[in-house]
């Protein structure tokens, strides 16, 4: 099924979830690695280029995902889920979206702070909306760093909760976001 149903997420939501998870983890790792490269490293210019293009791509995926989520039903929580688990999970999902949004935004403001756009895979340029003072640009950089760490830590908790449901509670929670749903 392409669309979500009360018994689980559809193909679009599943692909978006795992693709974004993969890209965001890669962006985080590359982001930490590339800022410590020496000037003569072969990857000194190419990694930031990929980081920015993929970051912009993830922002596009996020917008698509939010639209898809609003226009689709959300799978019903399992009867075994306690109310606080349902609330906490929903809150975590919202917070993950907000963090990704803010990370994309702060990254965009770093690179466009002097009024120049960002190259998107050498295909076209995403224009700058505004210019920023050097202090504000550095603030955007600091936020980008700490928000990225927050996202990864929250995602680890999100994953830990899913694995707990899968291996300890042995329920269908994790299978909701896979293609291995029970009929």
């Amino acid at each position, binding site marked *: 099924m392409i669309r979500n149903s009360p018994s689980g997420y559809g193909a679009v939501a599943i692909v978006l979830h795992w693709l974004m998870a993969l890209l965001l983890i890669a962006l985080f790792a590359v982001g930490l690695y590339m800022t410590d490269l*020496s*000037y*003569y490293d072969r990857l000194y210019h190419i990694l*930031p280029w990929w980081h920015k293009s993929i970051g912009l791509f993830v922002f596009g995926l996020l917008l698509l995902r939010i639209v898809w989520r609003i226009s689709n039903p959300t799978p019903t929580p399992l009867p075994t889920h306690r109310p606080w688990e349902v609330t906490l999970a929903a809150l975590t999902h919202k917070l993950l979206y907000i963090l990704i949004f803010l990370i994309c935004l702060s990254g965009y403001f*770093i*690179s*466009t*702070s*002097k009024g*120049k756009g960002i190259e998107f895979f050498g295909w076209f340029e995403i224009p700058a909306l505004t210019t920023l003072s*050097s*202090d504000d*640009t*550095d603030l955007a*950089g600091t936020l980008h760093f700490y928000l990225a760490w927050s996202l990864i830590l929250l995602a680890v908790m999100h994953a830990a909760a899913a694995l707990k449901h899968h291996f300890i509670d042995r329920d269908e929670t994790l299978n909701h976001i896979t293609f291995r749903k029970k009929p």
Partner: protein
Amino acid sequence: MKKMIATALLASTLPFTSASFADEYTIDTKGAHAAINFSVSHLGYGWVVGRFNEFGGTINYDAAKPEASSVEVTIKTSSVDSNHADRDKHLRSADFLDVEKFEEATFKSTSFTMGEDKKATLVGDLTLHGVTKPVTIDVTLSGAGKDPWGGERVGFSGTTRIAMADYGISMDLGPTSTHVDFNLFIEAVKQK
């Protein structure tokens, strides 16, 4: 009578005061007739050229006694501008200027020596990245005199070269990029 003596005394001291005290000039950053530009070799093939957009300072200058001239400049390090957002952010970081820790760089002259043909040598202490070292600036006096708007101005250009390692900046940009060349274009207006 008392008043007359006082006036006479005051008048007699005037020529001395103007002869023994240099006039103070403010560097004309307001009208942007001053620039602190720099260049660093890029890989030995090209250059990175940048500037500090925010600075200020004063010049004490006496046309009759140019040797007594002095210069003081304060630069806001976070105003470094190489026309590249990501590079400027890197230049502000702890790898280079560390502007959060060292908000200002200063230059205070210690001697000024006139040479021939409008050339001069300005020696002073440059404090950058928390390190103070003497630098020698080769100066060319460009002119001095009245401006069309009722003020008086002096101007000079200067060049100097510093090693980044001397100031504790350890980022390795390669063997050809260890120094920074400064090009200074300074004009100052006499304070009224």
